[in-house]
């Protein structure tokens, strides 16, 4: 089964072979390294840039305006914050020119905590990102979704942010969630598409024949069906919420866990339907909790579903402190943990209006 990082790599390969991708650019994305997470190994159009995030985003915008199909990587989302003005320009290009130009580029970047990343490899970006009009924003939680969302990102005529939960990069597909065409045997896949250690100058990947699989934006996925509480999440927290739901089943609490997969556009219909059934909703994400996208979803919830709620809608998110600290005691105190999610679902389930 492919890992998420392999899935991204295969999608990028399909992108450059069949969907017109012209440039995969970023720091260390080209040979010899092929990306700090190996996401861009063996790709024909991947090239290394100077260490300059503004240059990377700017060049991608220019490429997009010139009819190319660039994919710009920011090595860690922690380093994207000097480019917000450019991201705003990209998101506003079509609007500001009244449709004269559009800006079809993909910005991909690893996000979130969970790899002992300390202050500058643990940031989430979804709060800042969702506040940028004109961008579509996706965040896969499985290899297959990563594959299919990346293909959709590539062909979209708009700027698309592909936020990859870094803690899930090495997580494998579950049975039934394979990428069509991937070899059944992990070792075989690794042999085909993972660059060898040491000298790679003569190495060439041999790509499995994976077909197009466009996962549309704005279609959430129900990861666990349930009746008691709705849990809406994305990225790394999907697995945590699913496991929390599994734990609670023994107590007779069934949580319906929704993986949004895309934040803009968001699949409000699926959330709404679920909340209308459960009457209780918990939003979970890793971002610091003040002015957080989960708070936007709470607003929509009270706007449209106020009288159907049997408990106040809740957000479980990152502590509002400047960074995630390195010591595990600090990281687990900053970022939602399984036990906290279980507890929050249980409280919602037990809540009596």
């Amino acid at each position: 089964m492919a890992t998420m990082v392999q899935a991204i790599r295969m999608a990028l390969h399909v992108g450059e072979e069949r969907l017109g991708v012209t440039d995969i650019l970023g720091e260390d994305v080209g040979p010899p390294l092929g990306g700090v997470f190996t996401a861009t190994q063996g790709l024909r159009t991947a090239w290394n840039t100077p260490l300059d995030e503004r240059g990377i985003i700017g060049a991608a915008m220019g490429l997009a305006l010139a009819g190319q199909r660039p994919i710009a990587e920011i090595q860690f989302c922690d380093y994207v914050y000097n480019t917000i003005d450019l991201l705003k320009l990209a998101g506003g290009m079509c609007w500001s020119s009244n449709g004269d130009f559009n800006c079809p580029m993909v910005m991909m970047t690893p996000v979130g905590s969970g790899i002992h990343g300390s202050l500058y490899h643990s940031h989430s970006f979804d709060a800042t990102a969702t506040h940028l009009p004109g961008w579509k924003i996706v965040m896969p939680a499985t290899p297959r979704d990563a594959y299919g969302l990346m293909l959709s990102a590539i062909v979209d005529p708009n700027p698309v942010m592909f936020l990859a939960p870094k803690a899930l990069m090495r997580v494998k597909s579950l049975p039934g969630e394979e990428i069509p065409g991937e070899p059944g045997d992990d070792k075989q896949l690794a042999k085909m598409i993972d660059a060898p250690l040491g000298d790679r100058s003569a190495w060439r990947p041999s790509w499995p024949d994976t077909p197009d699989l466009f996962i549309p934006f704005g279609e959430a996925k129900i990861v666990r069906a349930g009746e008691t509480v709705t849990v809406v999440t994305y990225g790394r927290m999907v697995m945590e919420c699913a496991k929390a739901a599994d734990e609670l089943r023994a107590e007779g609490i069934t949580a319906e866990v929704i993986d949004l997969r895309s934040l803009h556009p968001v699949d409000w219909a699926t959330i709404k339907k679920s909340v209308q059934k459960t009457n209780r909703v918990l939003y979970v994400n890793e971002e610091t909790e003040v002015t957080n996208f989960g708070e936007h979803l709470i607003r929509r919830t009270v706007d449209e579903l106020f009288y159907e709620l049997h408990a106040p809608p809740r957000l479980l998110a990152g502590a509002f402190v400047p960074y995630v600290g390195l010591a595990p005691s600090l990281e687990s105190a900053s970022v939602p943990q399984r036990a906290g999610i279980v507890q929050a679902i249980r409280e919602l389930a037990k809540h009596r209006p």
Partner: protein
Amino acid sequence: MNTSPIHHATNGVDAHLAPDLLVRMHELMLQTRLLEERLITMIRQGDGYFWIGGPGEEAFNVPLGLLVNKGEGLSHDYLHLHYRSSGTLLALGAEPIDSLRQMKSVKTDPYSGGRNFVGHYSARKWNVVPISSPIEVQFSMAPGTAIAQKRAGGRGITIVQGGDAGTAEGDFATCLIWASRPGNELPLLMIVTNNSYGISTTYGTQHGEPRISDRGKAFGIKTATIDGNDPEVSYRELQKAMEYVRTERRPFLLEAHVSRLYGHSSSSGANFVEDEVDGLARFEARLVERRILSRATLDDMRTRMTAELLAAYQKVREEAPPDPSSIWDHVFATKNVNDGGAR
């Protein structure tokens, strides 16, 4: 480089440009000036909220527009301009009335649909990418179009232009770095129109570099600093620089000293500044002296163009504002329009 035939052909200091080219340049310079003055009148009369533009830069921007290989797609030049580029746009063939439309924020404004300030052009048919207000960001984007052109081959180049104060932003350095990557040098003409001011702040108080163009040298980028108030110098030096970029597929950094004839913008009053060189007046005197145009002809031209602009203004005044609901248009594109050009 210096021995290439093109450089010889344009290098002779005495070689005057052909009279019809001079006349054409003058006509566009005058049209640009009168357009800007009409826009200033409009703002004074309450027919707009803000004016910014290029009076004082015509002698450089008009030659630039004339020399551009205009059109859509990679084989034509891409232009990443800023808010003083009316001369370039008119030389490309833009209609003066469309600038009045943008000033008046009417629905028919072809550059932004009544959304943006005047002088903020976007013209895909000529590869003029949307001009935006934030200073210097165009220097971070320009390498992108140039990379595409380097790959495509041919003679299409990317031209990026900004002011002197803006070179303090990191984006200017980004452009130098990205334009000169070994083996990936870009066909990119970087232009700084140096009017010695950023709003109220003089160049000399903030910049220790006597010539901005010298910043290219550490990168092996060819450079020049020229008198941008002289359209003949501008034309020849731009031609040289462009030819180098087109054929060598390498960057060039050109600094042109220009004037800022009506101050920074309407915020600073937009009054005529007496002590700056007026490149248009100087050029007109020269044309008269060389008997290429007569004073009478010049007066006629001015009268005719002024009347045309007045008529255009009267037309625009009747045009409708954008619909409120149009704010929802073009938040997202439904298809990719950028690759529609003939490549």
